[in-house]
């Protein structure tokens, strides 16, 4: 293949952001088309280089071809979009009925989300699975944060000459498990980035609401309206997810998330605290902005890392 053609297909591969098997198939089909067009040009008497150049020009801009193909394959049916938004509906219901009072219920639902994510992942990563992966991530992320808090608190106790509640072996055991948890989360994140950083954003969408919910229910006696507020917040996340999955254009998808998530978080935080400048409101907004900025930043970093290794 000539350098121009190789560059064109490399560009197209980077822009396609579809399932790996689908990317291979699309590229193979377009390469076959280029071969036929080139052969036609050569039959008309053109030198090979010129025939390839004209065939590439006829293919059109790689960016536009990738955009059209993405719009074709990324948009899903209403039932599939509903399946993707389903876990947010369940999370809203849990908050509505004050289900956080039953840890076995919350743990069971998160374990179910993990199981569904694992099984679907092994069957080719259907598009609807990413919000489920978000809840599967919530368990190790929460365990990791709790572990860090316990270890840091324990170390403070030991340095301050007080008795740590767990004692040395317990603290070391938790400290030793943290790298494993971090590795597990990093592996999932990397797999999501390999497919498309937008899927990581979709997986992380409920985290600002989960953060507000966590702050709310740390109160010994949370107000009666708090369950309804959180249910509404998760309903908003479900609406964002539905809209995202029903849109074909990648640009529109990015805009919907970039505008929808901060607005939803602001609304929830203001309703909860009565003002934006509360620690919970500011923290939730920071989490929402992190959810939006972290995936593309990680994608850039991970992409550079991959190119560096390939070189």
């Amino acid at each position: 293949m000539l350098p121009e053609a190789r560059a064109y297909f490399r560009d197209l591969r980077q822009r396609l952001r579809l399932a790996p098997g689908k990317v291979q198939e699309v590229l193979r089909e377009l390469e076959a088309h280029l071969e036929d067009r080139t052969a036609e040009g050569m039959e008309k008497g053109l030198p090979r280089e010129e025939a390839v150049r004209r065939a590439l020009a006829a293919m059109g801009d790689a960016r536009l071809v990738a955009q059209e193909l993405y719009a074709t394959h990324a948009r899903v049916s209403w039932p599939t979009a509903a399946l993707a938004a389903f876990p947010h509906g369940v999370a809203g219901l849990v908050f509505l009925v004050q289900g956080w009072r039953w840890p076995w219920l919350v743990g069971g639902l998160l374990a179910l989300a993990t199981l569904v994510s694992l099984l679907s992942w092994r069957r080719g990563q259907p598009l609807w699975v990413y919000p489920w992966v978000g809840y599967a991530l919530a368990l190790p992320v929460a365990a990791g944060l709790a572990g860090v808090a316990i270890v840091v608190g324990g170390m403070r106790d030991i340095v301050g000459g007080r008795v740590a509640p767990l004692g040395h072996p317990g603290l070391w055991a938790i400290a030793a498990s943290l790298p494993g948890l971090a590795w597990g989360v990093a592996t999932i994140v990397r797999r999501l980035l390999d497919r498309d950083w937008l899927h990581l954003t979709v997986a992380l969408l409920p985290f600002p609401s989960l953060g507000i919910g966590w702050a709310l229910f740390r109160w010994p006696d949370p107000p009666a309206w708090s369950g309804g507020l959180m249910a509404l917040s998760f309903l908003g996340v479900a609406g964002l997810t539905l809209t995202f999955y029903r849109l074909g254009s990648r640009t529109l998808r990015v805009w919907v998330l970039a505008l929808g998530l901060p607005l939803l978080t602001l609304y929830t935080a203001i309703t909860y605290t009565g003002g934006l400048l509360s620690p919970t409101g500011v923290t939730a907004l920071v989490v929402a902005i992190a959810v939006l900025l972290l995936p593309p930043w990680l994608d850039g970093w991970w992409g550079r890392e991959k190119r560096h290794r390939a070189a």
Partner: protein
Amino acid sequence: MMLRRELLKGNTEALLLSLLANGPKYGYQIVKELERRSGGYFSFREGTLYPALHRMERAGLVEGRWEPSPSGQMRRYYYITDKGRRQLEVLQREWRAFTRAVSLVILPEQA
């Protein structure tokens, strides 16, 4: 030229189904066949053709299969499905009604 592109865009599905109703074809063959049958009036760009074919495949109107071409190279042939044939009948009926109505208005002397 712009009008022609818009007409092609608005009738892509009907044109593709009509071409495939005569037998399976791969992308390049579809482009050439459309140019031949339209007397060079229509010409598909690949950036339009493949997304349209894939969209129709997802809708169950056509089915793609990798098969060897007469020259022995593997090509993705598109077959029209039963659902695609039914859709083509609907589109043909609609097209006949549409062209008759348009002719009545803009070419009344020929109607």
